């Protein structure tokens, strides 16, 4: 499985929690109830990409950590 770099833009994140619902092994909420990544290996890649797609404010970016290819958006 390829390594992913997953980032959450806190200028955009509104704590809608779709990512936590889909991939609770990857995302959690911080004290401001915004999403943060605690384990980029905590769910299959397809689930992580779905979580990124489900973000209503497009705050999640997924990149192939080895090649730098942007997988989402």
């Amino acid at each position, binding site marked *: 499985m390829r390594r992913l770099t997953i980032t959450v833009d806190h*200028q955009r994140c*509104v704590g809608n*929690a*779709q990512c936590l619902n889909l991939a609770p092994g990857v995302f959690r909420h911080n004290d401001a*109830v915004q999403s943060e990544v605690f384990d980029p290996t905590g769910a299959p890649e397809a689930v992580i990409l779905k979580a990124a797609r*489900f973000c*209503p404010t497009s705050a999640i970016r997924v990149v192939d950590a080895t090649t730098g290819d942007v997988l989402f958006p």
Partner: protein
Amino acid sequence: MTHDPDDLFAPAVIADPYEYFGRLRETDPLHWNERSQLWIITRYEDLVWLVRHHELFSSAVIGSDQRPPYPPIDPEDRGLFDEVRHFRSDQLVEQDRPAHTTMRGAVHEYFTPTAMESWRPFVRQAVAELLDGVAPKGGMDVLQSLAAPLPVRIITHMMGVPNEDRELLRQLADKLLYINRGEPYRMKPLMEGIREMMAYVEPKVGRRAEHPENDFISVLAAAEKEGIFTRHQVLVNSALLLFAGHETTMNLICNGTLALLRHPDQWAKLCADPEGLTRLATEECLRFDPPVKSTQRIAAADVERHGKLIRKGDRIRWFMAAANRDPRAFAEPDRFDLSRSPNPHVSFGSGVHYCLGATLARVEGQEVFRALAERFPTMRLTTDRLEYQPSIQFRSLKSLPVSW
């Protein structure tokens, strides 16, 4: 005539909510409104805190609040009010966790930014057709000719019903608008609209359950098959498309157009680069004069804030209109500035109930403001006398006449 400072429906407060709620924001950010028996929250930081703590503040306001409606309704309509409550308590927006998570999960994919962006060509075409119709006339009421028919066209398409039904849906939508009004007789047209809408949708749900199509009713029908929605919830949430998507979009278009025309320097900027600036313009229109002024919650626990105690069961209204003008969150908040970026306004709320239709609203606003700037750069207001509907929730103009 004595004026009750807690009268949220006073003509001056309806005409200019920014002065009244702005003053509360600066002097009493957690204000107890004795007249309506509810807390009023106006600061940006407090609003974000409130809506992101759904475990402390329940969205099941209609179902659990036993107090009489405000402002008062005709006494003989108490039975109708109970019917409306029964209807509204099945709306997605009225659910708390865990039911809300499952229900929203079932419909969320239909509304993702990727999915809604694919609607842009359809929205662009609809805007073009509506403007083609009025262009030769040299003027229009933005509300009647553009802002009201556009969302009905979109929702007709979304429900997968024929174009011939647009007029019927528009008539239903007009009745449903009474949900946010203050008139004492409002329960009658509202319940009539709800009954007609449910009767209209019911046979379609059965057909979509058998033969799914690419529309929102099919999404709900599939969720019913999975046991996530009851049939009543399917009907209620089909109607929610009209409740949630009609007046909000109308207000975005009217309030945004008004803000642009009242700031000629900003309008000129947009006209010079409609394609490039329409996204930022739409965000600033949303911030400056938001379609929804306020929404409500009900306290699920005793909570302390600003040295005051909100008790379990207390009603709370939180004002996006005031938070979007909070100087603690926005530099020069009363200035309408298309170059504002970032622009973290709270016009779509925040937290788990963040507006499901936000991306669609954005696409509609972007396409409308772009098209108006491209086609009618000489557009101007033809009246100084603008009136708003007597609603505490919605910032709704009664008309917006312009010419070009």
